[in-house]
């Protein structure tokens, strides 16, 4: 199988830094144990993690046949076994039938609605070396952390465009963007938005509780890949290297009182059949333990980053992505599915009619550049982007496009209680 070439050396790194970087890349013994919690990291009951990972390890997707797929499509409720068949290569010829079934399930649970939101990156400092990410600590990009005044200004610009749901993101640096900083940003966001989600570094349950009290109610954490051996080769340094702590983030968020949690693998990093299976089972098992919570799935594919425009999602083409999303929908009909601006317009316009229930609009993955992007006004220096987006539609364009696709755009369907 083809592989991405992730390693890029910046000429701005000191010799010592370069040496350390190369050692991490080439000498596994120089890296910490990725299965060991770091000091201060809360440990919780590992039952769900063990269940998901053992199911994934035992998943032999080549054993499924066309008959298994047909049976799965005929069953009224989709079992775990049926889901495995729908994710397998044997299901590829059944994509249109899967889409038709997925559409019916989406309609039952969500009607003709599609939710709109936008991400807001407030800082891009990062302490991790994740080889595929534009924010990684060795990548030579312009770093920035917004002040509270700047955050509020960004929020005003976004809110004026009509958006009511915001997903706030940071790079993963506790030192630069601590929990209090993020909490204060949530308090500001409450003034401008109805619904606040977070996509930040994983924290302990008491910290999630604090952030919930500041106004956030949804937490998204991408596991990137559920294959811990592969994970170890991609996350070479920093707290993100600790695989189990990241895996358990959503459960800690629910323990901290958050209403909903989001999940995903970053498709293209590892075997997508297994990663898609694990992502969905992660929800399936958590839902049985926390039935009142709301769950959502995303489906990001690898994108080019600053200083490495060759990064791509390998064998996860649009067809495979569509298969994964249809399988998700049939197996977990009640779960929200978000498709971000990593995907192009034609894909997003098509998939919202089948399986997706939420799309972003007016997106920037940079820091502090909403005004210049929305109005063209030069607003000075901003921080660089995490990845290149593929769909730059504004909120108004997206709203109108969704309406003309026969869907009802929903800006908010939530109250904080």
């Amino acid at each position: 199988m083809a592989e991405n070439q992730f390693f890029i050396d910046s000429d701005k790194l000191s010799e010592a830094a370069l040496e350390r970087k190369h050692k991490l890349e080439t000498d596994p013994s120089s890296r910490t144990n990725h299965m060991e919690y770091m000091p201060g990291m809360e440990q919780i009951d590992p039952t769900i993690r063990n269940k998901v990972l053992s199911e994934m390890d035992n998943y032999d997707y080549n054993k499924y046949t066309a008959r298994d797929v047909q049976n799965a499509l005929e069953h009224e409720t989709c079992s775990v076994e049926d889901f495995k068949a729908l994710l397998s290569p044997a299901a590829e010829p059944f994509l249109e039938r899967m889409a038709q079934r997925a559409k019916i399930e989406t309609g039952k649970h969500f009607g003709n609605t599609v939710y709109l939101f936008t991400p807001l990156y407030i800082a891009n400092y990062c302490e991790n070396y994740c080889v595929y990410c534009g924010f990684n600590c060795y990548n030579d990009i312009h770093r920035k952390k917004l002040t509270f005044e700047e955050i509020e200004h960004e929020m005003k610009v976004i809110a004026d465009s009509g958006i009511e749901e915001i997903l706030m993101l940071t790079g993963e640096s506790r030192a630069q963007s601590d929990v209090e900083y993020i909490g204060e940003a949530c308090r500001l966001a409450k003034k401008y938005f109805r619904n606040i989600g977070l996509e930040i570094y994983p924290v302990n349950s008491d910290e999630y509780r604090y952030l919930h009290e500041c106004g956030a109610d949804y937490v998204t954490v991408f596991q990137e890949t559920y294959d811990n051996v592969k994970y170890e080769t991609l996350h070479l340094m920093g707290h993100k290297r600790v695989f189990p702590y990241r895996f358990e983030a959503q459960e800690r968020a629910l323990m901290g009182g958050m209403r909903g949690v989001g999940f995903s693998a970053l498709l293209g990093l590892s075997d997508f059949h297994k990663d898609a299976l694990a992502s969905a089972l992660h929800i399936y098992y958590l839902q049985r333990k926390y039935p009142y919570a709301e769950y959502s799935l995303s489906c990001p594919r690898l994108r080019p980053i600053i200083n490495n425009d060759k990064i791509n999602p390998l064998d996860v083409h649009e067809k495979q992505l569509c298969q994964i999303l249809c399988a998700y929908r049939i197996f977990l009909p009640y779960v929200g599915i978000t498709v971000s601006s990593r995907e192009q317009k034609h894909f997003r316009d098509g998939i919202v009619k089948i399986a997706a229930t939420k799309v972003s609009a007016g997106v920037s993955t940079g820091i502090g550049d909403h005004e210049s992007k929305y109005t063209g006004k030069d607003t000075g220096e901003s921080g660089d982007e995490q990845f290149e987006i593929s769909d730059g539609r504004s909120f108004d364009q997206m709203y109108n496009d969704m309406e003309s696709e026969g869907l009802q755009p929903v800006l908010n369907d939530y109250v904080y209680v």
Partner: protein
Amino acid sequence: MKNDTFTLGGKEFSSRFILGSGKYSMELIKAAVENAGAQIITLAVRRTNTKKKENILDFIPDNVTLLPNTSGARDAKEAVRIARMARELGCGDFVKVEIMKDSKYLLPDNVETVKATEMLAKEGFVVLPYMYPDLYTARDLVNAGAAAVMPLASPIGSNKGLATKEFIQILIDEIDLPVIVDAGIGRPSQACEAMEMGAAAVMANTAIATAGDVPVMAGAFKAAIEAGRSAYLSGLGRVLERGASASDPLTGFLRD
């Protein structure tokens, strides 16, 4: 049958079709209300919590009674808070209590629903609790001050019809409040059947929201509900389960 009305919280209604407003476009809601002849429309408080462009309240005709629901509430306390918000938003005193602690099936939690009903009735709300059709819960809801009970026919959005028919019939027979069949009604014929059984009204949403032609389907439900009501009032004729029957097969031997 001209004055065939029913009463909720002192208000009289002649239409027995309660329309849901979720899952479809605002323009269609207006057309659906008109074609349905509905006098009550439910709306999620969380959907009205929006700033511009799509505020549902702007699309509902003035003469229609709003029935805000507490969807999003996971326990009685949250339901009470959402109901108070509805009142503050100007939605009136009617409230449909919906408390779900399961995001997969969205089944109502009867225990919390009784608690919320009692608290809200004390605050002067006209409380219509969405419930799983259980006789004991229904009696508790009567004692808690409910204005009606709203048992589910089958899981929300499933369009599976009267899966709980036998239990709804028990509520209709035993509970003195209006029994409004809610959730899971997928076809006009199922709505008609609920009315034949003696339900006071039927509420439907997904079946209409996801129909090919929303306003026409709203009209079809209206006609079906009226037909079922007329059948109930006229007294249904005998319906044989199977085979034919002689006039007095067992007691024909009696002489005086």
